[in-house]
């Protein structure tokens, strides 16, 4: 009786582990940012890539800093992020083979319709940030070392605001992803810098609306990097490179440009643009 029970338990365990084993054999792991996942871009382009090559792409989405760390440890085959300076350092340190520009999107400044800082409709992000700081209007910062966080800090710098010195109760760092930052802004009726894609996909808007957009300084470049097999020999060079090649090919670039929400293009392909 007892041995029958043990057999049953073993059978169950085998069954469970066997069912995990039926996942496709060809796959790569891509560490990317929350914006590419949350915006729905991957849901649109990955099936196209898989249909063409048979390669399954498993996306781990994190902030840009974390995503690069994941690549550094060798836990991903490709990193696909948006922080040019950090990406170049990643390659220079030998963790990546080569940085390939893929596309850009743009940031928008989101805020409550009541607009306590009075910045709505402006095309000058720097002036808007200065106004928010002066009025001490609530501002939500990602605070998670993501690409968006890096972009936000760079903009404060351009605005001449020493954020470490100027911070106060009005400036809240949440240490979480884009969606969480938008949720917080919605709850507190605060301002927040968001990528347009995540904003368009975001459903819990409450009183929030776009305040500032289309400033050139709000453009946000994405690059893809193959993790260096010289550092991590297990990296799937062929399949990983195939993904990057497809992203930058006419097929991939068209797929990216075709992704729209409410008729709006979210990511603008620019693989061929020099210096991107």
């Amino acid at each position, binding site marked *: 009786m*007892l041995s029958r029970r043990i057999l049953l*338990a*073993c059978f*169950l*365990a085998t069954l*469970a*582990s066997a*069912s*995990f084993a039926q*996942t496709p054999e060809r796959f790569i*792991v891509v560490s990317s940012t929350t914006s590419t*996942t*949350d915006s729905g871009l*991957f*849901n649109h382009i990955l099936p196209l890539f898989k249909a063409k090559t048979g390669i399954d792409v*498993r*996306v*781990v*989405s994190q902030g840009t800093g974390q995503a690069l760390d994941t690549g550094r*440890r*060798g*836990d991903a085959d490709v990193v696909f992020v948006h922080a040019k300076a950090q990406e170049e350092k990643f390659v220079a340190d030998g963790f990546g083979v080569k940085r390939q520009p893929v596309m850009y999107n743009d940031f928008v400044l989101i805020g409550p319709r009541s607009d306590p800082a009075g910045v709505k409709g402006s095309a000058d992000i720097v002036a808007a940030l200065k106004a928010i700081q002066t009025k001490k209007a609530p501002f939500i910062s990602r605070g998670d070392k993501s690409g968006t966080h890096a972009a936000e800090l760079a903009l404060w710098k351009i605005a001449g605001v020493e954020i470490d010195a100027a911070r106060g109760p009005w400036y809240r760092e949440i240490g*979480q*992803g*884009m*969606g*969480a930052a*938008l*949720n917080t802004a*919605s709850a507190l009726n605060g301002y927040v810098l968001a990528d347009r894609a*995540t904003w368009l*996909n*975001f*459903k*819990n*808007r409450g009183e929030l609306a776009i305040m500032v957009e289309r400033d050139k300084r709000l453009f946000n470049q994405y690059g893809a990097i193959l993790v260096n097999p010289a550092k*991590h020999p*297990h990296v799937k060079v062929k399949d990983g490179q195939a993904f990057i090649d497809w992203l930058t090919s006419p097929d991939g670039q068209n797929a990216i440009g075709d992704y729209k929400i409410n008729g709006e293009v979210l990511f603008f392909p620019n693989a061929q643009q020099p210096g991107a």
Partner: protein
Amino acid sequence: MDVTSAFVEAFSLITRLDPGFLAIVGLSLKVTLTAVVLAALIGLPLGAWLAMARFPGRSALVITINALMGLPPVVAGLIVFLLLSRSGPLGSWGLLFTPTAMVIAQTLLVLPIVVSLTRATLEELWAEYRDHLTSLGLTGLRAIPTLLWDGRFALATGLLAGFGRASAEVGAVLMVGGNIAHYTRTMTTTIALETSKGDLPLALGLGIVLMTLTLAINAAAYAASRVGARYAG
């Protein structure tokens, strides 16, 4: 989106058995069930042995295992993450960001509960049964099957508690599974993700399933203890 319509959509997801929704629930159950079965296969014999064995340092071991019942899930996740990362000692297995990694992390969470409860239950039974079992020639390891069977209701309650802890956990599986769509996305990680995206219906729907599951687990544990009380006399 207001909360009422979120509830309406959540129930519609459940009642029309949305395939994406079911896949997430299925993966969660599969991962947690596997972890509980593994924890039982390791923990029941280990706890039984610990109930009967006497050796120097036993008390320290018992205390350590009791303390591990409160192991913060994120710490369990971190340990498994560090072990399985390509830069870690077991990196060559390539298990990080797979369901297997989530099973390992959850097993680590459930195991101390199973061992500790088995030890406590069987120690009491062994004190009561010792003379009788010795008289029948069932000493040492040969006593364990009897003790496990007669402790079955208490042990089932323990396994259910372990199942509850593992299925409700988000930190560890997020860390080691990577929350990859269609692959390592469980109920709890999806709730975290969808809430952050502001997509409340899916999060709510999964939340309702999780709550129902918790309710079912508690009902089962209650039933087990009722039946157990009957046999315990």
